[in-house]
């Protein structure tokens, strides 16, 4: 490994001063082979980077930052009275995925989403997979995202999850693996689209020299997906996007998608349910609503059915849904299938419903409710990553190798008091990609979140959000924890 590090250092010193700090070790590098030569798909980019003076790169980075700030593509950081708006850090250099790699990803993701939908339909109806003992019954019923209210409800096309943002990582051998299925209200797709727009503005020449597959049709694809879910007797359905409101950190994305699709962006206070029909309050009177793309969590969509104090949803919405008068995307109760403990069973779920082997592997996962696995994990906390099953956004996590003895002790107690609530995974060496940092090109860990749509058929726009852990050595890519993102090119 030492030799590999020195080889890139030698290479970069002679050829590219901006690569002087570039780190290369056992982790898969998106741009370089282990011997320090640029991979074929990155070669034109690498050459271009050597021609460009750091000052010019810096200037382009500023152009990009200003474009984000002026467009108001920001998220809000709370803490002081006013709330500060920050841009989601954008890294200048694209992440490149070959056509061949993409084809496999596409197949694997489609397979996974198909199986998970069948699983959701099954557990909210006859529960064959539970009767056959493939998935433990108590694991499903003890999940806090399991919604008993969904039992026996028939929904249009049996599609529970129509919008998914799956997190993938690339392991040391260069293969992609699934890290998390986000089946509730995945976000970030607007950054995927905005990153592309800014990229075209900042690096037009380089962009056009690559054959990058377009992603701009995401809005239309989402609209068709939602239309496919409308009640069958509503041929010209009214589709709306339900947002928690302007204070939600993803509000920019909600407005962006509503505009892309040309649909109304509604808040709970705009909706009224009368005789199991959902209406919105317009200047021309009440107008019937047929499909709701809701970006509000299950708990908050209807205070009469779920959390009583919520003002983000509409009272009576769930009854209208049960009556089949309105569609919700995603359906309530889908979180049971992206529970981190259930994740371990997804390969078995794929096998059970489709009789196929999973195309994209899982990451090895220890279930802490199992005595043997728990003993192993507790003995090796300093090497593993522990996650709370219901959390997202990088919260409720212990990264063993970066933790203190005290933090490990806290997690040990947490695990012992509620083992069902935690899982453990080996500390993954996420792949690294070149990023433009302080005037130089450095390697940072990245993941990949493609967006999958499931309506009449499955659509995956060729691309995704590549999230970057901008702090050197960090493995946490979440925007709330110092992460950024970059444009993702899928070549044709």
């Amino acid at each position, binding site marked *: 490994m030492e030799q590999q590090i020195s080889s890139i250092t030698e290479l970069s010193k002679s050829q590219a001063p901006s690569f002087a700090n570039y780190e290369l070790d056992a982790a898969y590098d998106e741009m370089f082979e282990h011997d320090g030569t640029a991979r074929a798909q990155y070669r034109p980019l690498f050459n271009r980077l050597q021609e460009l003076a750091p000052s010019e790169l810096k200037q382009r980075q500023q152009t990009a930052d200003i474009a984000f*700030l*002026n*467009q*108001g593509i920001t998220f809000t950081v709370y803490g002081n009275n006013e709330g500060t708006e920050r841009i989601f850090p954008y890294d200048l250099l694209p992440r490149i995925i070959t056509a061949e790699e993409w084809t496999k990803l596409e197949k694997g993701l489609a397979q996974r989403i198909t199986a998970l939908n069948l699983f959701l339909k099954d557990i909210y109806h006859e529960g064959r997979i539970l009767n056959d003992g493939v998935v433990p019954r108590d694991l499903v019923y003890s999940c806090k995202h399991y919604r008993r209210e969904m039992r026996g409800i028939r929904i249009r096309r049996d599609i529970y999850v129509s919008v998914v943002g799956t997190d993938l990582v690339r392991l040391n051998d260069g293969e992609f693996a699934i890290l998390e299925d986000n089946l509730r209200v995945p976000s970030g797709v607007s950054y995927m689209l905005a990153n592309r727009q800014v990229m075209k503005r900042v690096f037009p020449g380089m962009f056009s020299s690559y054959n990058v597959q377009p992603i701009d049709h995401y809005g239309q694809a989402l609209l068709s997906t939602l239309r496919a879910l409308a009640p069958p007797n509503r041929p010209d359905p009214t589709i709306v996007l339900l947002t928690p*409101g*302007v204070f939600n950190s993803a509000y*920019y994305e909600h*407005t*962006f998608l*509503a*505009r892309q699709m040309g649909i*109304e*962006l*509604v*808040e709970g*206070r*705009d909706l*009224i349910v*009368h005789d199991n029909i959902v209406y*919105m*309050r*317009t*200047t*021309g*009177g*009440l107008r019937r609503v047929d499909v709701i793309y809701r970006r509000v969590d299950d708990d908050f969509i209807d205070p009469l059915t779920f959390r009583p104090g919520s003002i983000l949803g509409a009272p009576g919405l769930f009854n209208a849904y049960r009556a089949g008068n309105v569609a919700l995307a995603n359906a309530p109760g889908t979180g049971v299938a992206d529970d981190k403990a259930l994740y371990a069973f997804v390969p078995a779920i794929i096998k059970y419903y489709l009789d196929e082997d999973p195309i994209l592997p899982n990451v090895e996962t220890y279930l802490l409710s199992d005595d043997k696995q728990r003993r192993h994990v507790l003995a090796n906390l300093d090497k593993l990553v522990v996650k709370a099953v219901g959390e997202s956004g990088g919260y409720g996590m212990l990264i063993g190798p970066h933790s203190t003895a005290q933090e490990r002790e806290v997690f040990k107690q947490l695990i012992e008091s509620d083992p069902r609530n935690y899982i453990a995974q080996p500390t993954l060496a996420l792949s690294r990609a070149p990023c433009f940092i302080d005037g130089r090109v450095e390697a940072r860990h990245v993941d990949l979140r493609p967006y999958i749509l499931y309506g009449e058929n499955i659509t995956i726009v060729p691309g995704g959000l590549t999230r970057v852990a901008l702090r050197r050595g960090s493995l946490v890519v979440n925007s709330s924890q110092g992460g950024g993102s970059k444009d993702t090119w899928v070549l044709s």
Partner: protein
Amino acid sequence: MLSRVADSLYWMSRYLERAEHTARLLDLTLNLTLDQDASVEVERWQMVLDSLRLPKPEAADAYQLTQYLTFDLRNKDSLVACISAARENAGQIREQISSEMWEHLNQLYLMVRRANIETIYNQPHGYFGPIKEGSHLIQGITDSIMSHGEGWHFIQLGRYIERVGLTTSLLDAHFKSMLKSDKLTAGGQDYISWVALLKSCTSFESYCQTYTADIRPERIAEFLLLNAESPRSVRFAAKTIQTSLETLSRINSKLKPGRAQRYAGRFRATLDYAQVDEIMADNIHNYLENIQRQCGQIHTAVHQQYIAYSVESALAH
């Protein structure tokens, strides 16, 4: 259109109109008081506060008043507060306005927030000038890019209802402070003040084209209230308000022609057939108050008809 969206468009537009007015008023006042003695300056500031219907804050010199009217966020009518409120309203309906509108409003907001009283006080025009331009730019984009549908008409309503309020208050404050002296000599204090009134309504040049540079209070009142062609006049605003309400009623044909439309028709007729000599002979203060009351009625009726109607009445349709 969602009622909430219409409401936000309306208020975005009102706040922006108010911010532009305040910027122009402060720019002129700071320029005007440069070569005036202290007592005139005090009177002038009092007039500015009256015209904005604000109480006088304690211990206020020009510097503090500029701070209070521009940056003080505790003053809900300060320029920065108005632009923040306009932006906040726009932010809640970002998908409804064109991205250009949002970008420029956001830029205007970032610009006004970056400055503070110390950085602008020696060069106020360098600050207020770009604010006026920014506001004009946003209005230009609104008119030339946004489709002139329902949302645009709510923007029109907000702009012109606010403009009526601002112009009549300004006129009222001027007449209150100026009618004490009836002599008007070119270059004298009063003369300068009347010219400033026209300039605060961006109407000096069009006034001169209509009446020559001969400045007379009665003609100023006639121009700002009853001129049919100037977009700064109250009569023009009444016409625009009526047109917009008619269009809104046509677009939402489900509803019966409402109160708002009838009020607007009456309001327009009041101005179409008014005579300035009668207004002056009677009592201009009462006349201006009456206009503001009618405008307030229209505002309330629009709100009840389009925004906050009862669900029962809507279901009955």
